[in-house]
C-alpha cells in the first residue's frame, strides 16, 4: 500500500466512519466522532502533503478498481492544500462546536429544536467533511457529482438546524439552489459523456474538449457551480443561509463548503478545458469584480453581525474569480503567481472567515443578540474573540502579516506581469472596502458608551478555537513557502 493509498483512505473514510459513530445520541460518542474525524483528516492530509511533496501527484484506485468502472482518486498539490486547510478549519470548528452545543447535549432534550441542533450537527458535519475530502481527491466527473450532492444536502441540513423561521427558509432556498446547481453540473457531465465517452478528468484533458457540445457542457456546469459558489449575481441565497446557521455551521459553510464548488470550477476550466477561452475567463473575472464591489457595499450596509460577515464572503469569493483571467493571459501560457496567489487567497479566506464567524459566534453567544449595536463594548469583555475577528479582518483586507496579504501580493504581481490594469484597481479597491466593513464591527466592539449588561460567559475553548484560526491565517502570512510549493505540485494542468 503506497502512502497515497493509505492516507487518502484515512482522509475519506475517517470522517465517514466518524459520522456514523456520531449518529449515536450519546454525548461521549458524539465527541468521539468529532475527535476521530478531526484526527483522521489532520493526520491523513499531513501524510498526503508529505507524499505529494516527495513524489509529486499520485493516484489511488479505490479497492484496486481503476477507471472507467472503479473509483479512482487523484492526489495533487491543489487538492492536498485544500484538504489540509479543510482539516485545520474543520478540526478547530469541531473543537468549537463541542463547546457550543456541549451544554445542550448534556440536557438530552432530544425533541426540542435546540437539542436537535446539538444532536445532529456532528454527524451532518462529519458527512459534509467526507464529501469535501472526496471532492478534493476525485479524479472523475461523476464522482465529483456524487460528493457534490452529499455536500449540498448535508450543508442545507446544517442550515436548518437553527431554530428560527428565517433559517428554515434560507435552508430551503439553499437546498433548491444546490440541487439545481448539481443537476446543471450533471447535465454537463452527461453531455461530455455523450461526446467523449469518458468521465476521467485525465482522459478528458488528454482529448482537449472543444466544439459546441463541450462548450454547452462547460457553460451548464459553470452556471451550476457558480450558483453553488454564490458567484455574483447568484449570491442572494448565501447571506441568509450562512448567517442563519448555528455559529460553527456558518464557519463551515462560509469557509469550506463554497470552496468545494470553486474547486470543481477550477478543475473544469483549467485542468480539463485547458483554460477554455480567454473571453470566458474574463467574463468570470468581471463577475468576480462585481462580487467584490457589490458584496462589500452590501456588507457595509448590514446591521447584523453575521450577515455582514456573510456578505463579506460574497465579496471575497469574487477575488477567487479574478484569478481566472489572470491565470491564462494568453492560450497555452499560465501564470504561476496568479495560481498561487488566487489559491492562497482561497485558503486564507477559509481560515480568516472561519475565525471571524466563530468570533462573531462568541460575541453573539455572550450578548445573546446578533445586531452590531448590541456588541458594543464587547472588545473589553472578550479580548480574544475581538483579536480573532480583527486578525481575520486583517487577512481578508490583505494587510500584512497575513495570508491574505501574501495572496494579494502574488495576485497583483500576476496582474502586473500580464498587464491587466483593471484587475489591479479592483483588487486594491476591494481591499479598502473590506477594511471599511471590518472596521465597522471593530468600531462597535470598541465602543465604550454602553457596556452590555447580560453577559453570558463564553467557554475558553470557543475563544481559543477562533483565535487559533486567526493565528493560522497570520502565520501563513509569515511563512507561505511550503504551501506555495505544494500548490505548484501539478499546478493548474496536472496532466
Amino acid at each position: 500500500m503506497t502512502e497515497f493509498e493509505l492516507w487518502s483512505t484515512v482522509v475519506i473514510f475517517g470522517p465517514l466512519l466518524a459520522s456514523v459513530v456520531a449518529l449515536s445520541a450519546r454525548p461521549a460518542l458524539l465527541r468521539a466522532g468529532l475527535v476521530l474525524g478531526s484526527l483522521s483528516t489532520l493526520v491523513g492530509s499531513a501524510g498526503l502533503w508529505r507524499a505529494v511533496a516527495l513524489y509529486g501527484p499520485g493516484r489511488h484506485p479505490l479497492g484496486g478498481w481503476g477507471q472507467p468502472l472503479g473509483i479512482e482518486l487523484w492526489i495533487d498539490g491543489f487538492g492536498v492544500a485544500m484538504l489540509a486547510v479543510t482539516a485545520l478549519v474543520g478540526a478547530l470548528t469541531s473543537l468549537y462546536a463541542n463547546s457550543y452545543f456541549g451544554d445542550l447535549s448534556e440536557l438530552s432534550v432530544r425533541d426540542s429544536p435546540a437539542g436537535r441542533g446539538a444532536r445532529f450537527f456532528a454527524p451532518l458535519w462529519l458527512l459534509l467533511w467526507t464529501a469535501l475530502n472526496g471532492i478534493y481527491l476525485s479524479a472523475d466527473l461523476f464522482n465529483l457529482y456524487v460528493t457534490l450532492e452529499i455536500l449540498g444536502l448535508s450543508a442545507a441540513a446544517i442550515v436548518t438546524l437553527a431554530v428560527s423561521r428565517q433559517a428554515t427558509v434560507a435552508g430551503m432556498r439553499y437546498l433548491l439552489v444546490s440541487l439545481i446547481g448539481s443537476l446543471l453540473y450533471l447535465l454537463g457531465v452527461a453531455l461530455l459523456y455523450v461526446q467523449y465517452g469518458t468521465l476521467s478528468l485525465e482522459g478528458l484533458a488528454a482529448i482537449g474538449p472543444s466544439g459546441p457540445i463541450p462548450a454547452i457542457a462547460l457553460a451548464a456546469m459553470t452556471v451550476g457551480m457558480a450558483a453553488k459558489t454564490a458567484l455574483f449575481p447568484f449570491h442572494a441565497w448565501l447571506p441568509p443561509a450562512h448567517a442563519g446557521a448555528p455559529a460553527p455551521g456558518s464557519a463551515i459553510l462560509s469557509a469550506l463548503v463554497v470552496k468545494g464548488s470553486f474547486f470543481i470550477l477550477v478543475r473544469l476550466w483549467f485542468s480539463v478545458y485547458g483554460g477554455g477561452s480567454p473571453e470566458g475567463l474574463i467574463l468570470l473575472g468581471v463577475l468576480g469584480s462585481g462580487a467584490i464591489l457589490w458584496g462589500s457595499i452590501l456588507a457595509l450596509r448590514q446591521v447584523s453581525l453575521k450577515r455582514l460577515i456573510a456578505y463579506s464572503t460574497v465579496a471575497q469569493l469574487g477575488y477567487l474569480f479574478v484569478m481566472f483571467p489572470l491565470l491564462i493571459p494568453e492560450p497555452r501560457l499560465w501564470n504561476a503567481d496568479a495560481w498561487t496567489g488566487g489559491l492562497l487567497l482561497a485558503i486564507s479566506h477559509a481560515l480568516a472567515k472561519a475565525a471571524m464567524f466563530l468570533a462573531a459566534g462568541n460575541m453573539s453567544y455572550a450578548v445573546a443578540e446578533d445586531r452590531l449595536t448590541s456588541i458594543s463594548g464587547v472588545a473589553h469583555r472578550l479580548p480574544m474573540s475581538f483579536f480573532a475577528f480583527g486578525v481575520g479582518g486583517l487577512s481578508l483586507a490583505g494587510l500584512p502579516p497575513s495570508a491574505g496579504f501574501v495572496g494579494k501580493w502574488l495576485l497583483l504581481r500576476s496582474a502586473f506581469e500580464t498587464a491587466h490594469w483593471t484587475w489591479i484597481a479592483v483588487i486594491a479597491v476591494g481591499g479598502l472596502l473590506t477594511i471599511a466593513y471590518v472596521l465597522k464591527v471593530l468600531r462597535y466592539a470598541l465602543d465604550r458608551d454602553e457596556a452590555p449588561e447580560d453577559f453570558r460567559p463564553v467557554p475558553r475553548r470557543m475563544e481559543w478555537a477562533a483565535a487559533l484560526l486567526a493565528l493560522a491565517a497570520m502565520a501563513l502570512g509569515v511563512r507561505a513557502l511550503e504551501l506555495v510549493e505544494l500548490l505548484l505540485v501539478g499546478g493548474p494542468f496536472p496532466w
Partner: protein
Amino acid sequence: MESTLTTLVGLAWGVPLALCLLWAFPSGHRLGERLVPWSALPALLLALLSGGAEGSEPGLALPMLFTGAEFSLDPLGRAFLLFTALLWLAGGWFAAAYHRTDPRSGAFFLFFALTMAGNLGLVLAADLLTFYLFFALMTFAAYGLVAHARDRPARRAGRIYIVMAVLGELALLSGLLSLGVALGGVPTFGVEIEGSWRLLEGGDASGLPILATGLLLAIGLGVKAGIVPLHLWLPLAHPVAPTAASALLSGAMIKAGLLGWVRVLPEETALPVLALGFLGMGVFTAFYGVLMGVAQDDPKTVLAYSSVSQMGYMAIGVALLVGDPALAPLALAAIALYAMHHGLAKGALFLSVGLADRAPLAAGSTEDAWRYRILAGAALPAIALAGLPLTSGGLAKNALKDGLGELGGVHYAVVDPLLLVAAFGTTLLMVRFLVTLERRRRDSLAEAGPEGIDGSGFGGLLLPWAGLVGIGLVGAAWMGIYTPVAEDTALPGLLDGWLAGLAPVLLGGLAGFTVLRRGEWLGSFRSVRIPAGDLLRPIEWAIQRIHRPDQEAVIDGLAAAGGRGIGWIGRLFGPALRLADHDLKSARGGPLAVLVFGLALALVVLLLR
C-alpha cells in the same frame, strides 16, 4: 601662563553658563543671585592678563562641541572683551543692589547670566557658528531682561524686540550659510573667512551672490547694532528694561552687532557698494538719532537714541573696513576705540538714571544734595560722548576722522563736514539728556513725597557707577594700550584737531542750554514730541490694517465644499444603494431564469469563439 589663559578662555563664558544650572535646583537661585554679579571676573581677568601681541593669542578648541567650536582672543577681541567684561561686572553689581527687593530677581539674574554668557562667548568665538551660537544665546536671553517688568509697555517692547531679533537672526543665518557653503564647512574668523569671500567674489562657489551675502550679514547684525531703519526696537526696549539691563544693552550688547560686522565682513576683499551703504546709513543714522532723540522726554529714551546715533559713527568705521583693504588696520583701531569709549560712557550714563531714581533723600528734607552730584558725574561721560578733546570720545572721533581722511575723495569731502555738524548734534542730545535727567530726579522725589527715599543699599548702586565714570574719565590714557594697532599705523595724538573737536561741543553746549533750559521764547515749538520708536507707529498701524482672513474659516469652508462634493457623488450612487438594500433576494422566477440562461448562453458563445 598660557594654560591659565586657555582655561580663562573657557571660563569667561563657561562660568556664567554653568551658574545657570543652579536654577535647576529648588533653592539654587538664591546662591545664583549672589554669584552671577561676579561671574564676569574671569573674562575681565583674561582681558587684562593676555598680552595682546600678535601670534600669541590665547585660544581654545573644543572639537567635540557643536560643529567644532573654537575660541581665541585676538587684539580686537581683547578690546571688546575688556569693556564688555567691565560693563557686565559693573552692571551685575548695580543690579544686585537695584533688585534687592524685587520678587522676580531670580528670573532676572537667570536671564542676566545667560545673556552675559552669550555676550562674552561671542567676543571670544573664533568661528562662524560659535559666534552665531553665542549671538543667538545673547539675543534671546536678553528678551527676559527687556520684558522683565511684565507690564504692557514691557510686553510691547519685548514683542518688537523679539520680532526684530528673529528677523535679524534669519538674515544673518542666510548670510552665514552663504559663507559656509563657499568653503564647504564652518570657516574660522580671519584667514578662512577671507578665503570664503574670495571664493564668493570669484563666483566659483555655490553660495549666494557676494553682494547679497554682504547685505544679508549687514542687515542681520544691523538689527543688533541698531542702524536706521533697523533700530526700531532700541528706543522701546531701553526705557522699559531695568537700568542695569539698559546699560548693558546699550553699552555692551549692541556692540556685538558691530563686532559681528568686523568678524564676518571681509577685510581683504573690497565691497565698494556695501561700503557706500554703510557710509550713507552711518551718517544718516548719526543725524537721525540726534533728531529723534532731542524730541524725547524720558532720559533713557534720549540715551537710546544717542546710542543709535553713535552706532552710526561706528558704521562709518565699518564702511572704511569693507571699503578698502588698505584702510582696514586704521578702521579696526578706530572701531575698537570707539566701541570701548562708547560702551563705558553709555553704561555710566544709563546707570546715572537709576541713581537718579534711587539716590536717598532724608525724610522731610528739601535739600537734595545728590541731584547735583549725579548731574555732575553724568556730565563727565556726556562730555566724552560729545567728543571733547582729551576725552576718550575725542580720541575715538579723531581715529575715525583719520580713517576718513585716508579714504579721501568725494566721500571725505562730504562726510567730514557732516561729522562736525553731527558732533554739534550729539552735544545737544547730551544736554537734552542732562535736562531730562534732572527732571526725572525731581519726579522721583515728588513721587516719594515727604517720606523721602530710603538710602539702604545705595552704596551698591553708587560704586559701580562711580567706577565706570572714573574708568571712562581716564579712558584717553589707557584705551590706546588696548587698541589693536598695526605696525604701520599710529593712533592720533590726544590733541590732534582740538579745535575741530572743541568747537562743536562748546557751540552745542551753549545752544543746548540756551534753547532747552531757557527756551521759553521757543513757545509751542518745545512741545513737539516724537513717540519712542518713531517709524514703528506707522508700521504697526499698517500691519493692523492688513486684512488677515481667518484660516480655520477658510479651511472649514473648503472642507464643507468638499463634503458637498462628496455628498453629491453619494447621491449619484443613491439608486445603486437603494437597490443594494433589496439586493437580488427578491430576484426570483423570471429574472433569475434570465440570469441563468443568459450567463450560460454568454459562456457558450464565448467558449465557441
